[in-house]
C-alpha cells in the first residue's frame, strides 16, 4: 500500500480521531443532538484541521524546538478565530447554536495531535491529505451520531437545515415517527449511542480479522 492510502485509511477508519483516538469528544457529544449542528461543527473542524495542517507543514523548517508548540497553537487558534468570524458573519443562526463549541475547537486534541505527529514533520501534500482524511473521519462520526440522535430523540431528520443551506432548505425536514425518546436527545444518550458506534466498529474489525485468519485455522485443525 502506498503511503497515500495508509494516510487515508488511518484518518477515516483505522485511526479515526473520534472512534479510536477518542479525541475531541466534548464538542462531539454536545453538538450531535441534531444533524445540522453536527454537520456544521464537523465541517468547521475539517476546515480548521486542513488549514492548520497545511500552514504548519508549510513552515515546518522554521519551527524551532523552543517555540514549536506555541507557534502551532497560535496557528490553530487563528484558524479557529477566522472560522468563527466567518460563521458569525454568514451563518449567524448556526453560530447561536454551536458558537461556544467552535471556540473550543482550539482545545480539540485531534488538531494539535495531527500538527505535532504529522504536519510538523511531513511534506505539504501528506499534511493536506492527512488533514482532509482525519477531518472527514471526525465529520463522519459526527454525522452518524447526529443523525441517529435526531431520528431517535426528535423523530425528525434534516430539521433546521436552512441554517446551513439557506431558506430553500426549510422544507427538507423529514418526520419519521412521533415517539421521540428523550434519552437520545440528552447527554447520557449521546454517550450510550457513541459507545454503540464504537462497539459496532470493533465488531466489524473483528469479523474482518477472523475471516482473514479462518482459512489458516482450518488448515491446522484437521
Amino acid at each position, binding site marked *: 500500500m502506498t503511503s497515500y492510502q495508509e494516510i487515508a485509511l488511518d484518518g477515516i477508519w483505522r485511526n479515526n480521531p473520534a472512534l479510536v483516538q477518542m479525541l475531541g469528544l466534548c464538542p462531539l457529544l454536545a453538538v450531535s443532538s441534531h444533524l445540522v449542528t453536527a454537520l456544521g461543527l464537523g465541517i468547521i473542524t475539517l476546515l480548521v484541521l486542513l488549514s492548520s495542517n497545511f500552514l504548519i507543514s508549510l513552515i515546518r523548517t522554521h519551527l524551532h524546538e523552543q517555540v514549536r508548540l506555541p507557534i502551532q497553537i497560535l496557528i490553530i487558534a*487563528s484558524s479557529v*478565530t477566522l472560522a468563527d*468570524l466567518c460563521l458569525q458573519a454568514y451563518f449567524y443562526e448556526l453560530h447561536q447554536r454551536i458558537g461556544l463549541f467552535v471556540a473550543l475547537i482550539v482545545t480539540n486534541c485531534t488538531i494539535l495531535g495531527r500538527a505535532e505527529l504529522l504536519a510538523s514533520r511531513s511534506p505539504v501534500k501528506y499534511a493536506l491529505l492527512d488533514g482532509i482524511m482525519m477531518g472527514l473521519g471526525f465529520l463522519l462520526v459526527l454525522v452518524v451520531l447526529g443523525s441517529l440522535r435526531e431520528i431517535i430523540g426528535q423523530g425528525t431528520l434534516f430539521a433546521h437545515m436552512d441554517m446551513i443551506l439557506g431558506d430553500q432548505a426549510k422544507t427538507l425536514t423529514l418526520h419519521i415517527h412521533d415517539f421521540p425518546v428523550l434519552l437520545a436527545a440528552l447527554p447520557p444518550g449521546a454517550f450510550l449511542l457513541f459507545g454503540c458506534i464504537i462497539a459496532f466498529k470493533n465488531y466489524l474489525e473483528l469479523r474482518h480479522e477472523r475471516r482473514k485468519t479462518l482459512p489458516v485455522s482450518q488448515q491446522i485443525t484437521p
Partner: protein
Amino acid sequence: MVKSKAKEVLVMNKPVTSFTLIALICATTLAVTHSLTEKQIEDNRKNFALQQLAQVLPNANERIIKLRPNSTVYSSLLESKQTGNILPLSTSQGYNGYISGWLAIDLNRRVRGIRIVEHSETPGIGDVIETTKSRWIDQFLGQEPDSAIFELKLDQGSFDHVSGATITTRALTRAIGKTLTNAPQSLPASPVVVETADD
C-alpha cells in the same frame, strides 16, 4: 569579534524572530477578517435582536414602534393605543459575562414579558434563562418595581434561584429589578415619530 557576537545573538534569537513574525502574520490576517466581517456581524446581531423583540409581547397583534428615534426604548401599541414599553435589558455580571435581552412592561411598569437575546452562560446549566429551555423567567411576569424585592430568596429577596446557576440567575434578577425601577414612568400621549421595528 563584534561581528561574530552579533551573529551569535541573531542565531540565538532565531526562534524569537520566527515566532514574532508568525504572530504578526496571524494578527494581521485576523484584523483584516475582523474589519471585513464586522459590519455583517453587527447587522446579524441587530436583526436577531429585533426578531426576538417581536416575540417578547404576549399579544401577537401588537405593533412595536419607536416613539423617539434616538432612544433605545421601543413601545408597543394595540390599535394605535400604547400598551407599554419594551426596554433593553443587560448585565455584565453573568457567569460568563454579558447577558442582554428585552423587557416588556405595561404603562404601570408591570412586567409583560422577558426574552434573552444574547448570553454565553454554560449550556445545560446557565441557559435556564432562555424561554425555550426553562420557565424560570416567568416568575417575573406581572411584577412591579414595588411589588417585590429584586434579589434571590437566598439573598433575602423574592425570587427563586436555580441550583448550579446561582450567579446567572442572581445577575439577571438584579438587572431586571434595575431596569424596571429606572423605566420611564410618564409617556407621551401620542406617537411623535412612527418607525416600525422591522426597518
